């Protein structure tokens, strides 16, 4: 495979070299099970305790709070919603999420709705910002949990988490925050905002895949999803993925150290990218919030053409990017985020999701801004659609793309 330039960090990130170095001894040398009393086991136990501190410090956790290691963000989100809902069923049966949540939140809420729970999905404005008035209104005396993401991995919009936390705290309802997309890119602080549960993913912090964590404030009780040997405070059974956990800890520490630099550098690159593309290409638009957005995210749609075709051409030029096109999803449905923001379905198919990362440089941006226009031009020449032949005239009766 030739050298590729990764503009698709939200899907997968190479493990940081320092992180991999930290993990290495835990594959063959310190292979012990932390439950074992012997030295090799205790080395693992110590390493995990250390990783808990590293992860806790990234998000401003208090010493008595818990960091529960899981197999990833999906499991952490499931544990937050399922684990909290089942455990606190007597208090109520209603949870609130937003329309911008990741599928691991939305589908888990749906799953719970088949188990006797109810949920409300709060809408967002055209920039993807959660409607806080609607959120307030959605609260009932049955509401036991609110789960809102900190930032959206796809369109980059950052939620007004302080306001949301205020609403939750005023109503005395615990708030779960999916911080997968934001941690390491912008400050995340559970203590400052009074967040009760928070989800993190290791790979998004340049740690290994297959690890994540659910932060829980000390007084938060959960029912386990996985039962067995009683690891992770009895809340998440299964022999610990020691090397993975060590990697996530090291990644969290590094992310904390580099946070300020990341914000500045990535914001600069991102702005170059957005400006370059929008200036060079007609009928291109930024999706998501113009300023309240992740420093590494540019989501841009191009009218009259389809995203997978753009993606493939870009890959021939060495760029790895993602698209919100339905064509690349398992369900063939267009991005629920763009739909929630009111982007027309046909237009949503032409969106590129660009997520920058540590190894990207100005040269990458320059090259991208150079290679993209001819690709767009080529595909537009192929398309029956154009300014003169807009989408609407082909609409079937049964379709309505103005959501």
């Amino acid at each position: 495979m030739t050298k590729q330039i990764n503009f698709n960090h939200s899907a997968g990130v190479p493990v940081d070299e320092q992180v991999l170095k930290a993990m290495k001894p835990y594959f063959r040398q310190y292979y012990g099970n932390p439950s074992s009393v012997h030295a090799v086991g205790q080395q693992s136990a110590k390493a995990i305790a250390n990783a808990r501190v590293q992860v806790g410090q990234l998000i401003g956790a208090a010493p008595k709070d818990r960091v529960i290691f899981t197999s990833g963000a999906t499991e952490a989100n499931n544990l937050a919603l399922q684990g909290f809902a089942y455990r606190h069923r007597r208090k109520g049966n209603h949870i609130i999420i937003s329309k911008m949540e990741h599928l691991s939140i939305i589908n888990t809420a749906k799953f719970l709705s088949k188990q006797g729970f109810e949920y409300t999905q709060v809408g967002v404005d055209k920039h993807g910002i959660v409607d806080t008035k609607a959120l307030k209104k959605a609260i009932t005396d049955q509401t036991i949990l609110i789960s809102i993401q900190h930032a959206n991995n796809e369109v980059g919009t950052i939620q007004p988490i302080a306001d949301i936390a205020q609403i939750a705290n005023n109503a005395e309802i615990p708030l779960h925050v999916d911080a997968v997309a934001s941690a390491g890119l912008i400050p995340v602080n559970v203590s400052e905002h009074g967040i009760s549960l928070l989800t993190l993913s290791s790979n998004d912090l340049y740690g290994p895949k297959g690890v994540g964590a659910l932060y829980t404030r000390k007084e938060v009780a959960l029912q386990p999803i996985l039962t067995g040997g009683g690891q992770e405070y009895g809340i998440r059974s299964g022999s610990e993925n020691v090397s993975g956990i060590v990697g996530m800890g090291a990644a969290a520490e590094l992310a904390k150290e580099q946070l300020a630099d990341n914000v500045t550098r990535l914001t600069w690159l991102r702005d170059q990218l957005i400006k370059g593309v929008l200036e060079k290409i007609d009928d291109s638009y930024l999706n998501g919030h113009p300023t309240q957005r992740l420093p590494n995210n540019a989501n841009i749609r191009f009218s009259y053409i389809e995203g997978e075709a753009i993606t493939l051409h870009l890959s021939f030029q060495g760029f790895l990017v993602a698209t919100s096109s339905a064509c690349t999803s398992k369900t063939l449905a267009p991005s629920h985020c763009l739909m929630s923001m009111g982007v027309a379905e046909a237009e949503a198919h032409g969106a590129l999701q660009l997520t920058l990362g540590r190894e990207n440089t100005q040269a990458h941006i320059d090259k991208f801004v150079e290679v993209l226009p001819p690709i767009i031009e080529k595909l537009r020449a192929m398309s029956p659609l154009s300014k003169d032949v807009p989408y609407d005239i082909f609409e079937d009766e049964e379709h309505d793309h103005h959501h």
Partner: protein
Amino acid sequence: MYSKTVIDHFTNPRNMGEMKDADAIGKVGNPTCGDLIWIYIKVKDDVITDVSFKTFGCAAAIATSSMITEITKGKTLKEAYQITRTDVAENLEGLPPIKMHCSNLSADGLHKAIQEYLRKTGRTVEDLK
């Protein structure tokens, strides 16, 4: 994911572009679903003498459009009408399963163009034999 032939047709599509003097156009798909294929044909003595396409859609939609123009040119209307989605996919050395059903519309576009031509010449598919 895609075969070499798909990539080839996607990168260098054959017979791409509007045909100003087309005898018929077959339009299939829907932009809200992410695929729209237009097949243009020129016909002489019930033989397809020229064919082209314009397509909004993914790589598979573009490649199947390109492929159908290649295998259609010079065929009689009757022969062309017998070309199926499967034929197109086979000529492309296969398509990913998920694409077989959603982006493999070009045969439908061709059939629609032939129907349109027959309609214009006061006939129906039944008259092809």
